[in-house]
């Protein structure tokens, strides 16, 4: 495009040359876009698998049996969460290496050009990462925490982490926590777990509420979060109201149920 003279259209060759440049530029852009969409889809799928894995490991009955003595229950549960998180982290590293691989495609001003293509995968990754982090620490992963998993050995980020993706990814986490709470509610120690998750999601909802004016999509996701919260509250309520009928500690009630079922 160095030839800056006007196209006299009677000179067709000139025009064609110019549009050929456009064509190459657009093809280049479209190809890169397609590649990134594919990568983002792969990341999404892998992240979903991590989330599935965590759910599966946290509700798997097989690993239950050897820790089913009442006193050890809580400790057994922590151990199980650690095990699940460490398995998940292995898988997350796979995803992180995909991010490392597409770093080149996203250099300079390109990151923001293709942010919308990368975003779905990135958000799903943050959802999986933060779920792992929650099971391991019981905390919400920080912005810096996420960014640091997407950086090379020198700590240089592969690309600037958009705040929006961070927030929306976390917002989806609450849905997974709801599933986690509901699935484990009727299991031993479920009541405590439900109460913990309930308090955690309640705080998330409040924290995110402050951010809604800044992110359009968050508004809709907050509604989903509210629904999830209510489902957790209802589940915690159901177990509370049932056990209130008896004059026994939750641990003893759990034991009686286990005994009946296995007899």
């Amino acid at each position, binding site marked *: 495009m160095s030839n800056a003279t006007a196209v006299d259209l009677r000179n067709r060759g000139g025009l064609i040359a110019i549009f050929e440049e456009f064509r190459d530029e657009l093809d280049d852009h479209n190809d890169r876009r397609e590649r990134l969409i594919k990568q983002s889809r792969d990341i999404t799928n892998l992240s979903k*698998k991590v989330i*599935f894995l965590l*759910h*599966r490991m946290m509700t*798997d*009955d097989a690993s239950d049996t050897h820790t089913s003595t009442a006193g050890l229950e809580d400790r057994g549960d922590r151990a199980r969460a650690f095990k699940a998180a460490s398995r998940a982290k292995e898988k997350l590293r796979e995803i992180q290496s995909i991010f490392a691989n597409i770093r080149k495609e996203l250099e300079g001003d390109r990151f923001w050009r293709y942010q919308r293509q990368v975003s779905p995968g990135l958000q799903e990754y943050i959802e999986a990462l933060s779920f792992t982090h929650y099971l391991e620490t019981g905390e919400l992963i920080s912005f810096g925490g996420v960014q640091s998993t997407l950086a090379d050995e020198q700590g240089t980020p592969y690309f600037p982490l958009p705040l929006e993706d961070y927030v929306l990814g976390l917002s989806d986490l609450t849905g997974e926590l709801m*599933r986690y709470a*509901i*699935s484990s*509610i*009727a*299991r031993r120690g479920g009541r405590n777990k439900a109460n913990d998750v309930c308090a955690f999601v309640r705080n998330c909802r409040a924290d995110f509420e402050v951010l809604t004016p800044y992110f359009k999509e968050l508004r809709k996701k907050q509604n989903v979060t509210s629904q999830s919260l209510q489902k957790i509250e209802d*589940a915690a309520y*159901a*177990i509370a109201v*049932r056990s*209130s*009928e*008896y*004059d*026994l500690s939750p641990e*003893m*009630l759990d034991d*009686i*149920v286990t*005994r*009946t*079922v296995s007899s």
Partner: protein
Amino acid sequence: MDSQNLEYINNLLEQDNEVREKIKEQVADLDKKTRTMSGVLNKIHSTPSSQLPPLLNQIKPVLASCKDTNASLANIIPANQFWRWKEMWSISLRNAVFAATLVGYLESGILLTLPQVREILGIDASWSDRYALPAEDYLHGVISLVNELSRLAVNAVTMGNFEEPIKISSFVKDIFAGFSMLNLKNDTLRRRYDSLKYDIKKIEEVVYDVSLRKLAPARSRST
């Protein structure tokens, strides 16, 4: 347009219409059968388990008669057009899968596999280019089964059967574990799978109630 060309095209268009009408008829028939079975199966919620066998015997001939409808459908669909028409019957077929697997559970306490259901419904594997039972439809039927069993767990207790919920609980957890191994896309199946959690929760609550009723002291059982 020369008249031969025209006739050729018109033929093609008319054939489709005819196929559509015939399928509609058979689907209406299949629908009627599944509706009859649903009506009878609805009674399991007020029938003590000892009296189930005659009820199931009432259903089996209807279930068997689905073979005819399925065979008719397989005959109607032109070769290779399974994917073209399948939306027309998939809901009815899922209902038939539901009925078959529910009968299977009530009789033997097991989950019928896809090939077993295919056999019961008389869907020949060799018809696969015209009429088949895809995994998706089988799974939808199984989810309906779980939905129904969570209701049965509640009503069994009302009828004084305290073992059934525990049996159901173990059966359903197994199915749920199976589902969680599948890589479902974000579609209807995924949404319905998600809803299974609530069925399981309900069943677990019944198990909880039953266990404690038997063994734990109530806070104030003044009644």
